[in-house]
């Protein structure tokens, strides 16, 4: 059987210190060699099979070094898929592994469908017949999970933005189609090259922006700026540690332990966060601590999201209320910590102060409530309630690859428009762009155009 070359992340996302991007297919080695830079300058293709090599991945278009990696090189047929296989081991974490995958896809691989490696293993005779059923179940299960994720993102900011781009393109396409199919209709404005060009340029600049967020944009480089605030000793540092799952911040029973700002990068259910622990905010005597407090206030202003921590077992103080005032117009989640201790706080009153903001109760000591908090963060983000500056979040490698394709097709359209190519030919690339963008948000229904056609224009005999 003849196949193209596929690639995918083959470790669970976001977890583990090492992540693997796997390639399989006739071009696997060639693609790897395009990107891989060994210190000695050697080519993978010339190496013995089943060997591992240290080096860097570079962006072949800019020669910029992207990642430090170990590459395993395995020639067919003694591989899982019975094809040439390359495994790129890189640092764990969604940012770097996505970057590697995106690079591989740009270099010519196609993103594997769910379960496709296993499918190939089967089709190439690596897996025997009795396992075929299992393969089919696997494809189904993986796809369903992938669809869940896609659905989550669909309602998010990305899909909103893509939706807007698509609608803009669709209106032009529909107008063009009407010009073609109903050439005598005088009440439909003639689609012209300048109009088409203007739209295409706008769409391309929006795609550019999106791609920036994916490669070096604020969010992926820095994460969503998430600031933990609260009075001293409520458990801010403990919260940071729980989210990071490591002891990064010093936790003591002494109020005012944290003197300065501590930053940590974490990935919470696919949302990259730059977590900032702050010195407890209150008027203080200690001069060192005071600087910390002032800086805390400043960080607060620049935050995308605030985790406002309260103590479950203390009554609400004036300071707490003042803090509510300070964060009023921002996105925040109230975390009420220490639920293992007796309740002293008036939850109803807190909810009243918080208005429609979410309240999550936790006991960090008992490790309770963290799941709910993580869920709340992911939900806020994917539902688009958190505006990270004006950035939209693109980290999924499939999306990045598709955005690159869309960028190519819309650029083709722009180039053609510059060359005086007939509008209906330019439209071929515009339509293609519209389709590719549709793949990103999982909208490939092809009756969209006809619906637009007949709702936007009055046609008929």
């Amino acid at each position, binding site marked *: 059987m003849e196949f193209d070359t596929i690639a995918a992340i083959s470790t669970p996302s976001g977890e583990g210190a090492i992540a693997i991007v796997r390639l399989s297919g006739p071009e696997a080695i060639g693609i790897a060699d395009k990107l891989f830079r060994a210190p000695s300058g050697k080519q993978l293709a010339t190496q013995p099979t089943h060997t591992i090599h240290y080096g860097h991945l570079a962006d072949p278009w800019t020669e910029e070094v992207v990642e430090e990696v170990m590459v395993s090189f395995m020639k067919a047929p003694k591989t899982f898929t019975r094809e040439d296989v390359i495994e790129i081991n890189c640092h764990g974490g969604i940012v770097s592994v996505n970057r590697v995958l995106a690079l591989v896809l740009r270099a010519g691989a196609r993103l594997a469908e769910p379960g496709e490696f296993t499918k190939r293993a089967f089709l190439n005779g690596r897996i025997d017949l009795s396992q075929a059923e299992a393969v089919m179940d696997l494809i189904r299960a993986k796809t369903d999970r992938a669809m869940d994720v896609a659905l989550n993102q669909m309602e998010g900011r990305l899909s909103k933005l893509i939706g807007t781009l698509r609608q803009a393109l669709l209106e032009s396409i529909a107008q063009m189609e009407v010009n073609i199919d109903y*050439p005598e209709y005088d009440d439909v404005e003639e689609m012209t090259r300048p109009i088409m060009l203007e739209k295409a340029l706008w769409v391309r600049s929006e795609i550019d922006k999106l791609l920036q967020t994916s490669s070096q944009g604020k969010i992926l480089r820095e994460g969503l700026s998430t600031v933990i605030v609260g009075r001293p000793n409520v458990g801010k540092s403990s919260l940071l540690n729980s989210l990071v799952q490591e002891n990064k911040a010093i936790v003591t029973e002494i109020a005012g332990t944290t003197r300065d700002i501590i930053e940590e990068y974490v990935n919470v259910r696919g949302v990259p966060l730059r977590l900032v622990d702050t010195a407890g905010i209150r008027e203080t005597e200690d001069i060192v601590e005071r600087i910390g407090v002032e800086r805390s206030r400043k960080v607060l202003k620049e935050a995308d999201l605030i985790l406002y921590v309260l103590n479950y077992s203390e009554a609400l103080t004036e300071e707490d209320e003042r803090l509510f005032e300070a964060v009023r117009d921002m996105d925040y989640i109230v975390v009420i910590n220490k639920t293992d201790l007796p309740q002293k706080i008036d939850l109803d009153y807190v909810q009243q102060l918080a208005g429609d903001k979410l309240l999550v109760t936790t006991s960090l000591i008992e490790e309770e409530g963290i799941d709910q908090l993580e869920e709340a963060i992911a939900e806020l983000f994917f539902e688009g309630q958190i505006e990270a500056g004006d950035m939209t979040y693109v980290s999924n490698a499939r999306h990045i690859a598709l955005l690159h394709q869309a960028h190519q097709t819309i650029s083709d359209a722009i180039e053609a428009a510059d060359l005086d190519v007939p509008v209906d030919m330019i439209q071929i690339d515009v339509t293609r762009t519209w389709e590719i963008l549709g793949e990103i948000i999982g909208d490939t229904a092809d009756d969209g155009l006809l619906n637009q056609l007949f709702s936007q224009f009055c046609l008929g005999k």
Partner: protein
Amino acid sequence: MPQYEAGTFDVIVVGAGHAGAEAALASARMGAKTLVLTMNLDMIAFMPCNPSIGGPAKGIVVREIDALGGAMGRVIDKTHIQMRMLNTAKGPAVRALRAQADKVLYQQEMKRLMEEEKNLTLHQGIAEKLVVEDGKVTGLITQVGGIYRAKSVVITTGTFLRGEIIIGDLRYSSGPNNQQPSIKLAENLEELGFETVRFKTGTPPRVNSNSIDYSKTEIQPGDEEPRAFSYETTEFIMDQLPCWLTYTNEKTHQIIDENLHLSPMYSGMIKGTGPRYCPSIEDKVVRFNDKPRHQIFLEPEGRNTREVYVQGLSTSLPEHVQRKLLESIPGLEKAEMMRAGYAIEYDAIVPTQLWPTLESKQLENLYTAGQINGTSGYEEAAGQGLMAGINAAAKVLGKEEVILSRSDAYIGVLIDDLVTKGTNEPYRLLTSRAEYRLLLRHDNADMRLTELGHKIGMISDERYAKFLAKKDRIEVEIKRLRGMMIKPNDITQQLIRDAGGSELKDGIRAADLLKRPEMTYDMIAQLTASEVELEDEVKEQVEIHIKYEGYIEKSLQQVAKLKKMEDKKIPENIDYHSISGLATEARGKLAEVRPLSIAQASRISGVNPADISILLVYIEQGRIAKIPS
């Protein structure tokens, strides 16, 4: 009614509308002994609606029919009153020819062709019942008890099945234009287990030309250049009749608003689904009520009649309201209405019950084509008729079936859409339905299909030889232009400057120069001093090929991918319900459509990529299992 044996044929075609005429001619041409049985021999290829053939997408279908040896193009070339090439200011992919027909002459010419076709018998009669033996059709019985036996039957009864005409609150059982409806046949199909839907369409009033004040309208002449649909046409009609343009206005719209309660569309009397692309005037006014006016084209129905078709005014309002509407329109104030507009409801067969050959899945040897399959339009009907006729005959004669791909022809797109996706409104072809429209052009229909037409016996050796010679001239000329260098001498620079381009810095290949937007083939020909004078059609092909090479190449790459998926055949006996892993919806849809290839399967709505993967694994598993180890 006593029955009698009325004759035995290879193929029987029921109906002689646009689908039936092509089906009968094709079947006979293929060498099958064919009977065409139709209700009224005076109504062969009758146009119940607009007197016009072609237009975007549809005009290309006519070219395709011609390239495959069908009749529509040849007939309209002899009987039109006007022809226009549309979209000439746009790219070559969307150019399309449209003709205004002389309706009566068209019918006569089609009838003559059919009468002259050897192997073809024409007979007037009404089919009422199919003869079915062992799940196969073996003939039919007519109203007068004639039993006709055949190996295949093609039904092309258009809008006749349980047809009902509706005007205002009047509703009566009828075929189009007050012909009799087909009720018995509809009942028989229902008994045989065919699933049907109720569709609706409509037509505008006709007025007498003598009563039109044309001075208040704009003239719409035909092209001065000679035009033809058929590649075989050598004689061109230059004496053309114009059409005329006028508009509705506030007053027209007010009349509609005031009388909307009398419209069967809005009183709930019409239940059938109408086509969105052919709304009635009342629909247009309601849905787009901010539009101050709508275009109305006045189209003569022929040379020997004064009847004029009022395009844009399709309606089922009561006759007296129609009169008022006409009176409100400039030029039609005194118009004498000869026929009122009306809506018609009818049964159509759910087309996913058909194979891509248009043969029924449940009843072997039965084919259906045309409006009965849920389409609308003469060209759509003719395209299907041609394919059904070809396939019915092929089956009888033991020849291979003929299925056009979406990348071969608009006819391929049409049939694939129908049998794969079905339709929930009368289906009309639009250029946007074709994903490879750059390949499916008006100009290259012969390049796409004549080879096939010849192979299956629809195109004569003589015509084929001519085609090959043309193809050869195109290829030779493209090669020549690719190889020849043009020097930046005075003559060249002058010509380029005159065309508005920028001068050459260096020598350039002729083909590359032609790629510049301002250059035409004729200019390049001047610079390259060709000895042979090529005909316009060849020049056009050369020009398009070279100019749009990049785009064509891209489309071809996409087609190559499609072909790969088309080559992955799905075994006919596959049991979708036994495939674990398929989503429930996909399972149901696949079992209904029973796609022939993975490509077709992936076009079914509700079947997602995971289902396709699973299907591939399943098929491959079967293949592996069959290889003895």
